[in-house]
Structures are given as C-alpha cells and as structure tokens.
C-alpha cells in the first residue's frame, strides 16, 4: 500500500502544479480505468472538488455502457463535462473500415485538436502511462505540443526533479501526464484501495471474457478471462505475460508512433 501512496503523492503534486500554472486547464476523461483513477486523484488533490472541465472526445463508436457511466458520475461528482466530436468527419462517414490509423486520426486526434482549439485550452491533463506502449514510455510529465498539436519527441525539454515545463510560447499547449509512473496493476490496486467506482465492462459477467483496455467498440476486443472482481483482476495481472493493449487494433505495426507524433493522446 505504501507504494500506492507514493504514486498518489507524486500525481497529486503534478496535478496541483498544473492547476497553479495553467489558467485554461482541462482533463481528458475516456471513462476507462486510467482516466477515472486520474479523475479520482484530482478529487484527492483538490479536496473533493474538480476545478477544471473534463473533456470527452466522443467518436460515436464508444460502447454505450460507457456513456451511461460517464453521465452518472458527472452528475454525482458535479463535474463540468465537455463533450467534443469531429462532426464533419462523422458526417462524411468516417469509420474504422477506412483504415484504423485514418479513423483514429480523424475522430480522436483531430476531434481532440478541434476541441482544444475551440476552447483555447493551454494545459491538458491525460491519463497515459509509461508501461502501456513504447512511445508513452518516453513521455515527460509536462510535455509541450506545437501549434498543430504535434509532439517533437526528438527535442523534449529537460525535466529536473520536481520542476516541470510550465511556460510555453503562445499558440502551443502542454500535455500533462500525472500517471506516467503507474502500471496497470497499480491502477487496479488503487481502485481497490480507494474503492473507486469503475465500469463493469472490465469484469467477466459469466461468458468468460472481459475488456482489459477500453476503446471504440469496433476496434477493441475482450480477452478471455474469468476475473469477476478487482481482486481477480489483480491476481490475473500478476501472472499474465500478455500485453495490456493486445486487444487494441490501432497498436499494430507502427500505428501508435505515427498517431502520437501527430498529437494522439
């Protein structure tokens, strides 16, 4: 438990730094386990309050149960929820059969960019973790994006001790990653420790499958698992050697590197 409190202390510090330095700050919430833990940590950092809007980039292909869960928590926790959508692309019929990277770029990356631009957010908090995949392992806690939202991973600014990049040229923005040091197991251990409400798609409800990572319905597949509660999940993860995002189609080949350079979350 001590290691979870250490992770919590670090994340809370980062969230408070973000809140102090960015006048127009927002947090991305996909309703998945990671960004929900992130939301919980914000409530920790600000003593039960969430003093910035939560953004959901809605691709329209999310699993319906996720939208119900989103609206329920938004009401219960009095969240300022902002939903964005790339309506133009959807009207033109964008879907995953046009190519997964093409679809992710249009509905998620560009949907996010449109949302950020329309609201003028200069700081965006995301729940990405270093252990998810290779390019996220190379992120900074405070990571600058240029005016096109692109990530110049070749030339990232230094990050020393607890001092983060909080100043930036006009027109650019900073992505803030408080969960970088958390692993998948840590997320579930913390959900258990704090009794955080999570969406039950992560559990096996009798058919011997569950979702391990949540995304759009067409591009996310469940895994074989009989984990029926958080303890089962933690036990399962301690013994698995299957990658967390093995059910996420966009990760194939160099998908994530290409997506993330262009500003994917």
């Amino acid at each position, binding site marked *: 438990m*001590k*290691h979870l*409190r*250490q*992770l*919590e*202390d*670090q994340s*809370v*510090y980062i969230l*408070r*730094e973000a*809140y*102090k330095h960015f006048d127009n700050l927002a947090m991305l919430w996909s309703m998945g386990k990671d960004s929900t833990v992130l939301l919980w940590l914000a*409530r*920790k*950092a*600000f*003593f*039960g*309050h969430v*003093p910035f809007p939560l953004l959901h980039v809605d691709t329209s292909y999310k699993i319906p149960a996720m939208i119900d869960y989103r609206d329920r928590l938004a009401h219960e926790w009095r969240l300022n929820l902002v939903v964005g959508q790339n309506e133009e692309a959807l009207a033109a019929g964008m879907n995953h059969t046009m190519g997964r990277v093409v679809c992710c770029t249009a509905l998620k990356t560009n949907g996010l960019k449109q949302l950020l631009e329309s609201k003028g957010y200069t700081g965006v908090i995301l729940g990405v973790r*270093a*252990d998810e*995949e*290779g*390019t996220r*392992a*190379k992120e*900074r806690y405070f990571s600058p994006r240029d005016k096109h939202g692109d990530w110049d*991973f*070749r030339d*990232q*600014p*230094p*990050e*020393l*001790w*607890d*001092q983060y*990049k909080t*100043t*930036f*040229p006009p027109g650019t923005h900073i992505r803030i990653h408080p969960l*970088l*040091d958390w*692993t998948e*197991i*840590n997320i579930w251990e913390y959900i258990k420790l*704090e009794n955080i409400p999570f969406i039950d798609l992560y559990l096996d409800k009798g058919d011997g499958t569950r979702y391990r990572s949540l995304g759009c319905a067409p591009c996310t597949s469940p895994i074989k698992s009989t984990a029926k509660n958080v303890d089962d999940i933690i036990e399962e993860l*301690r*013994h698995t*050697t*299957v*990658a967390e995002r093995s059910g996420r189609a966009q990760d194939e080949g*160099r998908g994530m*590197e290409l997506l993330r350079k262009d500003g994917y979350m």
Partner: protein
Amino acid sequence: MSETTKPSENLNIVIVGHVDHGKSTLLGRLYADTGSLPDGKLEKVQAICKQQGKEFEYAFLFDAFLEEQEQGITIDTARTFFMWKSRQYIIIDAPGHKEFLKNMISGAARAEAALLLIDALEGVKEQSKKHGYLLSLLGVRQFAVVVNKMDLVGYRQDVFDGIEKEYREFLGQFKAAPSQFIPVSAKLGDNIANRSGQMSWYKGPTVLETLGAFNKEAARSEQPLRLPVQDVYKFDARRIITGRITAGCLKVGDHLVFSPSNKRANIRTVEAFNIEPQPTEGQAGQSIGVTLDEQIFVERGEVASHQAHLPLVSTAFRANLFWLGKRPLERGRKYLLRVATKEVDCEVASIQRIIDTMDLAQQQGSNTINKNQVAELTLRTKVPIAFDLSASFEATGRFVLVDEYDIAGGGIITELVHDDQEFLREEARRRDFAWVKGEVTVEDRAQQYGHWAAVVLITGGRHTGKSFLARTLEGRLVADGRHAYLLDGENLRRGLDADLSEEERGQTTEMARRYGEVARLLTDTGLIVVSTTNPFGLAYREASQAIRTLVHPAPVIAVHMSKSEEEPPPNTDVVLAGPTHFDAATTRIIDELKRRGVLAQAIGAKPIFQYSI
C-alpha cells in the same frame, strides 16, 4: 522465473554511460532473463530485425522510435517496469550520446539509484566521466559500475581491474563511491540475472542482485521540517495551504513559521479526501494540505518550518550548475530561478569557474557557460528567498534556471552569500517573531478596508516633484475610499529623531532603519503608506533597499522620478522621466497597485475585495 509477489515498494533506477557501451542491451537482457517481457515481444522484434536484414539486438526492445532503431542509439529516456522479489523497479534507460545529455539528466534526476556502464574494450570514455560527475551533482548517491562486453576482452580479470582502478580514482576526486563493480556481458547474459560461468574470478553480486541491494531512499522524515507552499485553496469553507513535505514531519498543533515572510500560525487540521479517520500528521514525501488557526496571508514559494530550524534567507547564493540551454548562460543576463515552489527573477552575478568533467580541470575568467558545461557561480535574486544548502536538504537546496520558455539548467546550492541587507533582515526576523498581536489580524483589516497594506515609495533626485506627487496620490486614494497616509520624513526628524546629533542624522543607515520601522508599524495598521526618499537626499538607493527589507512582506511599489532619462534603482515599478503630468502619474500608480493585488479592481459603497487567493 518472474517473481510476481505483491510489491511493497517502488524503486527508480537509471542506467547511464557512454554511447554504445550497451545500456539498452543490458536492459533488454535483464527483462528477457527475468521473464519480464510480454508474450511475443521478443519474437515480434526478432521478426522485424529479420525482415530488415539486421542482427537482433536486445536494445531494440526498448528503443521504441523508428529513428532510434535505425541509428542504433537511444534518443530519449524510456521508463520501463519490472517486478522482482516484492519490489517494483522503474528502470530509466538514459541516452549516452552527448547530443542527448539533457535527456540523460532528465532521466537521472528522477532516479534513486543508478547503474553506470563502461565498455571493457573501449574503457573509460568522455561520457562515462561526465555521467559519473553528473550523478553526484544530481544527488544520486547509490550506484554500481557495470563493466560490459567482457566477452570481447576474453573475460580477463586484469582488464576489469584496470578499469575499476582508473574509474575509482576519477570518482574519488569528488568523493563518489560506487557500491560495486560488476563484470558482465549483456549480450550473452553473463552476470546479469545469472552468474557467469566464464568469470570464476569474480565473487561479487550479479546485476540483478545489486539492484536488490539498493536501498529505498533514506527517510527524510528524520530531518527538520521543510514544507514549500505549493498553493492555497479556498474551494469551500476551508482555506487550505498545500504542498509536498520535502523533509521532516508535522502534526496538528505545530507552530509553523513561513520564510521569508516570517508569518506564523499553528496547524489546526490536516485535510484529506476519502481518508478515514482524518489524518493528524504528515511526513516527508507526502503531498498534503493543512488549515491554520489564523487566517494569515501566505503565498506559494514560502517555506514552512518549525521555528527552531529555519531555512536560510538571502538574495544571493553560490552553486554548482550544469547548463543545457540552447544558448549559453551569460553573466548579467536575467533568468527565472525556481527553488522548490518559489519562482523569482535572478541574474548571474559571477562565474567562478568552469569545470571540465574529463579531468576536473578548472577554467576561470569566463563570462558565459556553454551547453553541457558544468560551472561554479553566484546567483543574485530580485527579492529575498528561503532556501537551504544542498548538503543539508536535498529539495530546498537545489534549483533550476528557466531561459525564455525552457528549463535550461539546474544545480545545487553550496553556500549562502551574505548581502548588505543581512543585519536588517535579522532585525526584522527577531522583531516579527516577538511581535505582540491583538485580536485583529492584518487579514481582518484588509477585508474591512477593501485593500492590503502597502508602501508606495517615490525615489529620485532633488526637485523632481516627489513630494507633490505623494500628496496628490494620498488625496486621490482617500477620495476613492482607501485608507492611505502620507509619511513625510520631516515629521520624523523633529520627533523620533530629535535625540540624534546633526552628524548622526546624516547617516543613511540609521535614518533608513528608523524610517523603515515606522513604515512597518503603519503597514501593520493596514494603511497604504505613501512616502518619498526626500530625507535621504542622494542616498535614496541605499535607503529604499533598507525600507524594503524592514517592511517585508508588505509590498513596496517603487516609483522613480527624474527630469531626464536615467537608470532607475533596481526593482522600480513605475518610471516617470521628463516633465510629469501628476494626474496621469497618479493613475499609473493606482493601476500598479491594482496589478499587484493591493487594491481590488472595483470600488463601491462596500468594496468587493477578492480576499482568497
């Protein structure tokens, strides 16, 4: 063979060393030999290598970017995770190429322990030394040296011994001592997770055993308390002071002193969300929130401590610094200094010497520090700040410099530099600690009056219109419903200073001290004190500095008047050069009072004052 028992702690490890000495390979091997790789990862990377017609390397497992794999080097630090014997390791693979030194430093600054690699065939190289020196500067005291590629030197003990001797001598010059030298072949797996059959002469631990022997950072809770204020929240009825305890511990009822403002109060509660029962104490490492028994005004950047162990306060210190900026660091240029949560403008007062990390030779007389150089220098801040020496306190004893938008350098504080305000600052501290307070606080008065206390100090040569401007400003403030008072030096001369001889009255130091103490009393009554430096004649620069020190932390709005263009004293807020339009000048000063948060933005029958921060 992976040991996935429940983790009890996390440990951050960085792998550093010269380019091509095998850092990423070591990491890949460590994962492969402990069964820590996801299913199919090894096979997937092997297939990609085969397809691209190149030999498989363990390094490819973590060099995620296409460019990194093509060039065979690590560009940026990667965090990877593995679990071994109930400890979760976060391993930071830092790049060894000198072009990416800033990435190596970013990685190492997060680490609690390090593995430093040296190629047995190439021996000790430039970056081996630089990285060794920087580990010490960054405060990473636990580390082991891994001598890699032993297979290329026929596993010979004399080669290993030679490297150990040479490198120990280098490290000894700055008193760094590795826990271990380990001969390995990362490529072949000798002494990584498994003991090598090739080097029976080596009896020490493997790399994996060495990781297990690294200690979790010693508890800083034993030290005196340091709580740099991160922010003050007023989301509901509670006014919560937040921050991360960087040393020591605190509990409900403790008497806290905030430096450099010298404000004091007792801890009423420790606040937390979803923790039952509510905590009553906190210790080093925790991000906490406390409420105080008095509504004192404290700001981000102040350091809370117990009164028996105060941090240092000055406007200057000496430091060891490494520079990573795109443009060189220059003496005399302005930078933003960040020490813990304090951010303040500073300039490089002097550069004592530049240190060559190859042979630790020192070069003196330079006015600039280039990218990737290490130097000893003196920094001077615009206002006094609280800090510690890095030998005593880690977090409050180190700093970064921001150039334009980026963190461009970092360092550790080695020495306090005394400034000319030292004696007055000590007087102010002793006086503030002994100050007898009534029931009405400064904050109560501010709320009642609709503005904070402040000093408007008008400086300049003779016959520039200072007195007239001061009188105009006082009149305007009072007409606007503010509580302002004109403090004229002449009134002090005839009364308070009547005991002084004519000669003594000519001494700026004592006159400024008396003047400053009177202004301090008036600001404690909640007034906006309007004043000029007329009594000090041409010594106004010295006098205004002393007044600033004595009225601290009340803000001083410095206005400089001159008949023609001239250099105003440091920290001047409003410059009035040439013929003065007094109404316009008054408006400018009032705007500055609003900008500084002394005055509320709107005035009404009952002023609305944004009291919470």
